[in-house]
């Protein structure tokens, strides 16, 4: 069995934050004395990741995903627990480790804004001591994959958000790391750019076998890239396993959307076929148990006859699944 790339055991991180009530009196008081509170950002999580996996960290804001990622990258010391990435203890930040990893943060830029990206790449090459030939080869490949040709010679400041993100990706991968931590990589990007970035990440993983951990609250990122998800909620691991199973566990139903012809809608009541979730202007959305979905669909087609204009059977939206996971207050979801 191959050694895990990422090995995490009972990792914990607790922060202290200051608290203050509103109002003038409280403000003046806080001038003199501050109140602090402990926050358990990460409350003991354990998991392993094998080489070449693309794993998604899911969780609502404040769940502890970014904190976990920062500990694995080496930016934070945990309050307790252990972690190893590529056999290194990340927060020792040994140069040998740093050369093999990369951290990309969606809403933060590591490039110098006023100079063209190409200049920043040169600096990075020097910092990571990438041999000239390898540098040129990697740069060519990244330029091709990310379509950077026109972008690298303009000052970063002048690029659009999506272009900047692409260039940031390139900068993060110049040294061909074997582990990549991506924190909200598609945040703020338009839909088509999100799709392109996802394609790039998948392709990069395919070509180089790099292990990728990404956090996101866009379900589409996770659905497109990750076969395996780790769900974190309030600092605890809720679920660790295949994405598909999560849906089945948490939302064991199908969504049937029935579109009725004009006029038929008012007179047709579909409550008998399943849980009516929405009904407007002739479009009725039903929820039905997975097992009975095929049978219900057949019955609907049969019974509605020519009142039926269209019918579709879909899996529940991932957002709904995740929403259920988070609001269910369970402490784990057994796969």
């Amino acid at each position, binding site marked *: 069995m191959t050694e895990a790339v990422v090995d995490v055991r009972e990792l914990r991180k607790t922060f202290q934050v200051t608290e203050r009530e509103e109002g003038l009196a409280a403000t003046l008081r806080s001038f003199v004395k501050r109140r602090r509170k402990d926050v358990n950002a990460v409350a003991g999580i354990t998991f392993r990741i094998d080489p070449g996996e693309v794993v998604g960290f899911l969780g609502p804001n404040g769940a502890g995903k970014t904190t976990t990622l920062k500990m694995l*990258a080496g930016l934070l010391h945990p309050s307790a627990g252990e972690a190893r990435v590529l056999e290194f203890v990340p927060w020792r930040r040994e140069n040998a480790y740093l050369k093999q990893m990369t951290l990309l943060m969606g809403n933060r830029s590591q490039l110098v804004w006023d100079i063209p990206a190409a200049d920043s790449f040169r600096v990075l090459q020097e910092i990571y001591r990438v041999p000239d030939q390898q540098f040129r080869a990697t740069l060519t490949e990244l330029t091709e994959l990310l379509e950077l040709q026109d972008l690298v010679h303009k000052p970063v400041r002048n690029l659009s958000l999506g272009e900047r993100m692409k260039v940031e990706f390139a900068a993060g991968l110049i040294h061909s790391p074997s582990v990549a931590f991506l924190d909200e990589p598609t945040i703020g990007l338009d839909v088509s750019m999100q799709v392109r970035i996802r394609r790039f990440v998948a392709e990069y993983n395919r070509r180089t076998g790099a292990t990728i951990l990404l956090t996101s609250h866009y379900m589409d990122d996770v659905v497109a890239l990750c076969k395996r998800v780790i769900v974190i909620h309030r600092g605890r691991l809720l679920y660790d396993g295949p994405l598909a199973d999560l849906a089945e566990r948490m939302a064991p139903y199908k969504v049937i959307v029935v579109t009725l012809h004009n006029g038929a809608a008012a007179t047709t009541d579909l409550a008998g076929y399943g849980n009516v979730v929405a009904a407007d202007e002739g479009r009725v959305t039903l929820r039905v148990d997975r097992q009975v979905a095929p049978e219900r669909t057949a019955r609907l087609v049969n019974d509605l006859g020519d009142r039926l204009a269209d019918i579709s059977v879909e899996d529940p939206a991932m957002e709904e699944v995740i929403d259920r996971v988070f609001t269910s207050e369970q402490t784990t979801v057994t796969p």
Partner: protein
Amino acid sequence: MTRYLRLLRLFFSTDLQYELEYRTNLVLDIVQTVVIMATSIGAILVLFSYTDVLNGWNLAAMLVLLGCFYLVQGFGELVLAPSFEKFMEHVRLGTLDFALLKPVSAQFLVTLRQFRVTNLAQMALGGVVIAVGLGRLPRVGISEGLGFAVAVVCGFVLVYALLLALSTLAFWFVRVDNLMALYWAFLDAGRFPVDIYPGWLRVTLSSAVPIGVAVTVPAQVISGRLDFFGLAALVAGTLVAFVLASRFWHIGLRSYTGASA
């Protein structure tokens, strides 16, 4: 070591390319430097319109001092202040993380990253003022010249140490752009000979925050007013300051990453 020198050269040339693109800004910056220095010289002339000697310094020696001041301040503004301002912004925005994850010394990357090459003008003009002042003083020998070079380098390192120590506070306080104000304040005090300040202030500027020393001593050396022991003390003090400041910075870094729990 050569790698770090190569990196420095890269950092320098990158900014140079950037500045050269904005010629008007470049020219304006230089004009501003000239105006500021001219008015500073004016201030000294006003003082010397009432006296020939100020605490044992004559006008020529004061000009040398002012020149040294701009030489040291210029160096600070050339690479240190811009880098430290950037560093504090990084801490505020959370982008410091990128610097910590590179396989080079984080201290190097953070403190020497950002050049503002227009400040070479300040350093050059400072040199000119020194030369003008020297022209009116008795002859200067090789040993004075060497001592001067050593003292100036010590001055640069002392400014580095001061900024490093100040910016370490950025790890604990959120908005610290005003820390630069403290730096400027202490540096400003160095535009006059340290010995004009009364007791406790002189001691502070000379020992705890050795900026006054950073400027006064080179001036003393080149005008033949300092002996070997004074210079040796300066070098020793500089090394101590550098080591202490670096230690302090690393403590701050450990606190930032939660290591000192």
